[in-house]
């Protein structure tokens, strides 16, 4: 059994209420930080913990916090990104729904560390019931003196607000989130300036994922060094993984970073193996944006080493043979699933969610979807595969925000690893409507730039 730092108490009855949460040791990190530590000491602990952003990019949190500009007389903000919209990712919802005070506690401790007196949780509009859960938890925290003026008599003030989005995936991008939070259309901003310098209301701002902020609670409670003992290499601590697809036990799991993918996929403690005894065809290990990897690269790297559930191991081999840990949206496909159809489905999502600001993404996501649809419905031509490759190449890295990359990568990886299946679709348009291609051969393709 791996250690659980975030969700070990989710099954305690009434844990969503302040009283039970407090009785179970909740809000200790706030007491410890506010009463015994300076804000810089909290930042230092986070740095020591090696915590990396849990939203997908995996940027070291302590470093992000230390970039925060601190000009005289200008307020600073902490914004929690709870706009969890990546297909295959539902871990933040689980945390907020089950144990909302954990996030509130994390927000207070983190806000203190950053010197923010106003903080926001920006939650996706589709999570309206979770918003109400959070609002209730926040009201309880106010009532018990953990929010508002002069918290715990320390002189520290904090107001915490929950704001909801209106159904746009793009608002999970931090600068688009800030625009939306300011009441504007959620278009990403150009960087620089980065939010750490000019974020919300043109003031220095840190935007962190729900899980990242929650992880600050055990870090402060037990110390950064203790936290860093869990995990492997630069992947420290625990991570929430939302597992779905053709597995026996879909759900949210808290794992110690560094456990083998094989263990995660097949052990009864986690996914419990492929459903109905089928064979594994492919896996998207970090949410819809990360490259899909074929069965033979899931549990082993190209070098033949065990692939681990860690930032480094999952991206081992780069995009040629690896993928990413991303947000921890672990999607598993069995041998009966069609990669063309799946890629089209993802492309349709990104076409729908592109904000439309940058021309490569606005037009390109639309065309990827159209061309994939053509192939999927049996009207594809061989040159369409090259066209698809060409479009995704023009999108990747050529947009203001990473949505372009997120839209390009799944298409690129699908062609890279499953080109045969695409060609089979085009050559057998009738057959492809009723039958699936099955597993691809174990070979790695060299692709043009």
């Amino acid at each position, binding site marked *: 059994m791996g250690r659980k730092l975030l969700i070990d108490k989710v099954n305690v009855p009434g844990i969503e209420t302040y009283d039970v949460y407090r009785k179970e040791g909740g809000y200790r990190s706030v007491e410890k930080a506010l009463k015994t530590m300076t804000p810089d000491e909290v930042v230092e602990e986070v740095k020591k913990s090696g915590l990396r952003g849990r939203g997908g990019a995996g940027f070291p949190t302590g470093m992000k916090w230390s970039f925060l500009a601190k000009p005289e007389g200008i307020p600073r903000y902490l914004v929690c990104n709870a706009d969890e919209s990546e297909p295959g990712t539902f871990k933040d919802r689980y945390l907020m729904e089950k144990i909302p005070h954990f996030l509130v506690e994390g927000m207070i401790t983190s806000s203190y560390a950053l010197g923010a007196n106003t903080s926001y949780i920006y939650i996706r509009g589709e999570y309206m019931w979770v918003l109400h859960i959070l609002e209730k938890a926040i009201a309880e925290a106010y009532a018990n003196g953990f929010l508002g003026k002069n918290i715990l008599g320390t002189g520290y003030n904090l107001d915490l607000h929950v704001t909801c989005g209106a159904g746009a995936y793009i608002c999970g991008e931090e600068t688009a989130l800030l625009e939306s939070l300011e009441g504007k*259309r959620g278009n990403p901003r150009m960087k620089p300036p980065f939010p750490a310098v000019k974020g919300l209301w043109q003031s220095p701002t840190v935007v962190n994922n729900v899980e990242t902020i929650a992880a600050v609670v055990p870090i402060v409670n037990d110390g950064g060094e203790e936290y860093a003992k869990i995990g492997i290499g630069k992947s420290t601590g625990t991570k929430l993984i939302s597992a779905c697809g053709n597995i026996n036990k879909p759900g949210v799991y808290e794992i110690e970073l560094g456990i083998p993918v094989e263990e995660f996929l097949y052990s009864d403690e986690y996914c419990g193996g492929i459903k109905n005894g089928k064979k594994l065809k492919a896996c998207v290990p970090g949410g819809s944006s990360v490259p899909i990897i074929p069965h033979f690269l899931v549990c082993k790297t190209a070098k033949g080493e065990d692939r681990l559930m860690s930032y480094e191991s999952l991206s081992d081999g780069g995009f040629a043979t690896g993928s990413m840990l991303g947000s921890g949206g672990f999607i598993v496909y069995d041998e009966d699933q069609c990669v063309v159809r799946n890629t089209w489905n993802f492309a349709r999502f990104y*076409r*729908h969610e592109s904000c439309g600001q*940058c*021309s490569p*993404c606005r*037009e390109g*996501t639309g065309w990827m979807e159209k061309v994939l649809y053509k192939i999927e419905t049996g009207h594809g031509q061989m040159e369409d595969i090259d066209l698809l490759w060409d479009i995704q190449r*023009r999108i990747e890295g*050529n947009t203001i925000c990473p949505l372009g990359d997120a839209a390009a990568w799944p298409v690129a990886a699908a062609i890279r690893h499953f080109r045969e299946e695409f060609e089979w679709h085009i050559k057998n348009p009738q057959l492809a409507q009723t039958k699936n291609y099955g597993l691809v051969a174990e070979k790695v393709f060299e692709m043009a730039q």
Partner: protein
Amino acid sequence: MDIKANFKNKVSESGSFSNNNGVDVKLAYIDNVPYEIKPGETILSFIRRNFGQELVPTLCDAPNLEPFGSCRVCSVDVALQQNGSVKTQASCHTPVMENSYIYPSSDRIQKLRKNIIELVLTDHPLDCLTCEVNNNCELQEVAAKVGIRDVRYPEGKNHLDRTKDLSHPYMTSDMSKCINCFRCVRACDEVQGQFVLSMAGRGFDSHIVKGSEVTFNESDCVSCGACAQACPTSAISDIFESKSIAKAETTRTICTYCGVGCNLEVATVNGKVKSIQAPFDADVNKGHTCLKGRFAFSFYNHPERLRTPLIRKNGELLPATWDEAYTYIANELTRIKNDFGPDYIGGISSARCTNEENYLMQKFIRKTIGTNNIDSCARVCHSPTALGMQRVFGTGAATNSVIDLQYTNCIMVIGANPTDAHPVTGAKLKQFAMKGPSIVIDPRRTEMAKYATYHLQLKPGTNVAMMNMLLYYIISEGLEDKEFISSRTEGYDDFKKQILANDIDELSKITGVDKELARKAAIAYASAGNAMSFHGLGVTEHSQGTYTVMLIADLAMITGNIGRRGVGVNPLRGQNNVQGAADMGCQPHQGAGYYDVTNPEYHKMYEAFYDTKLPMYVGLKIPQMYDAALDNKLKALWLMGEDNVQTDPNTNHVKAALGKLDLLVVQEIFMTETAMLAHVVLPAASFLEKSGTFTNGERRIQRVNQVVQPIEGTKPDGQIIIDIMNKMGANEPDYDAETVLKEISQIVPFFAGVKWNELGDQGKQWPVLADGSDTEILHIDTFKRGLGKFHNADWKESQELVINKKEFPYIITTNRELEHYNCGTMTRRTNNAKILTEDTLMINPADASKHSIIEGDMVCVESARGKIDVKAHITDEVLPGILSSTFHFPDMHMNDITSSVADSEALCPEYKVVAVNIRKSKGKYKGEKVVA
């Protein structure tokens, strides 16, 4: 080869580079060749500075907009070392990094650009041959440049069937041509600040909307046309097809409407004006104008233009030849001069005409006639500004320039409505107010007031009390700039004593402005570091106009806000050349260059310069001319381009005076209310048909260049004046701007270095020294008069209210609307009249309900002079007891009710305070317009 050796500057021992002046420079490499980086540069500006516009194509970038980074066509490869691994970056918004290697046209990049344009073209009609902007389309140009030959994508869903929007009198849109570059949205936000256009939908469904998805006509669009000019295709354009290359040639000239002095680029086809655009390189307006400047030009060849001289015979104005008209006038003027003396003749010049024409007008009156009875319409707008600022500073002109808005920390707008009356400067002020602290002092909640940090909504006619409140708080809070006061000013001790003697509660009661609000505003202005004030006719057109101007100047001096960037006292001049008309000497007390006509030394100088005898006493101001006419002391009056009957207060009084004259000559482009009373009407040429110079509100002398030939039968005003001078014995050469400007530069000291050929596109700000250098900021080290002089003034209620307020308890003030200019002679003859069709009376809901008036009711407004009917617009922009109305349409006769009360010092009429009573009108509006 050592690439650094290529760089012509030297490498210092430390390894850093220094240029030829020994200053360390930062380098970056373009295709492996080093170039110097300027601070704050983006990669794009860095490349363009060294290679010109051509090397890197762009679509979403525009010269007057902030970088946006959305089209990605400007992408370049950037490496940290020579031929190292590259990252593609959008050059338009990425700052150029020291020692980076930039590859603007690598194969990868060229392919990227081609692919992006290919994607864009999949949703753009390929009907270039029939497109308005064919050959002048940025998309077309970029597509050609990147070498698109075909589009590989199959036919798919697109937006080519979007309907056109032709609802607006000027603006048009065809969104099937839209490439989602956001340029129009940004122009609307960043240039005009109107926020009408925005992007709706997302991804492939993104589309530009006006307001809440309405048409141009239904939206809040102010028709400035910035979006149309910004649009790289023809998705947004105008009815004149301004972006079409059908324009054979373009002429750069200056707008004739307000005192902002926007540069215009006028396109002509076959000798006719086709369209007007705003040049991006103009210092004054940087690619922006309002709908008057850009669209309201079609008056110039309107069928109603006067095309022949008219002489009144048997009570009727009948066509005559120029020679008949000149002979008639010359005979009459000679007769009156001989029978009564030259002082029985007067002239009123026009701030709408050029400097050269104004100069000639006063020369004609002074030299040929021999009287100082010369005045101009500056009398009825900014004469108190000129006089008040002269008394305090020594110079009656704006101390700073509009560009100083970039350097200021606080603005104060007093009695001005710049977003309507000076739209281009107004947009800049609005942009400032949205970001920085601003104070607006105005009885109306104007658009500026809505954005202001502090809106001091005072009662009309209490400006002096308001200024005293601000001065009181600055002194009592100890915020005065003691250093500046002691070194640069005089008279402060007395001034301070009198200011502190004010009863602040009493002042608060008079103005109706809360003390605390006034205190906060005073502190904001005084502690800003750099604060600028702007004022307009809400300051000057009062019985205490000159005093208010002096107190505004006092405010600047007491806080040390004079003589550097981002500060000063900046009157927003109403007419295009109101500054110039006064500079040229169209004033009864001062000749060209502001020399006192009663000073023996200057008198001698003028006599010598004009080689004639001149009177050594002050002539008549405009209101005095009317009185003199009624008194039989004035027999002839020459009006150049002014409709006094409609625009001067107390119409019946003006009409009676003009009716008494033996000779009334009117130079006009249309048959105005005044011209109808004339004995001789002379058809003049409009600003598009002549050359000369206008001086804008920031003292900028700019070249007006003839765009088209004068309409047949008309002559430039300057030529008409010269003709009559020659008819009366002078020997002047034909009107030529350069010749007259040369003469002006010999007598007006601050024009000393002004030369026609050296004014260039941007003009020069006077004083222009003999060596040709000009002046952006006045009073840097010392005031024109030496030390700045503090002047006190106590508030006095206007006689109009003292006498009439019992019987007429409401106060009506006058205001302007964006669409029309003054009495609308020109703008009413353009499509502007379709946008704003009539005058309206603003009335507070409380007052309206008291009189059972509902929106659109006709209201009878009655003063001691007369009554008018006007349509009610119920709004809380005015406070209870206060009314406001425009007077753009002649049918409305606003000036039937205004009074003859005028500024005690400069005789500027008090249009802004009239005691009236109101009732719901029983009769029908006499001039009711049919609204389509």
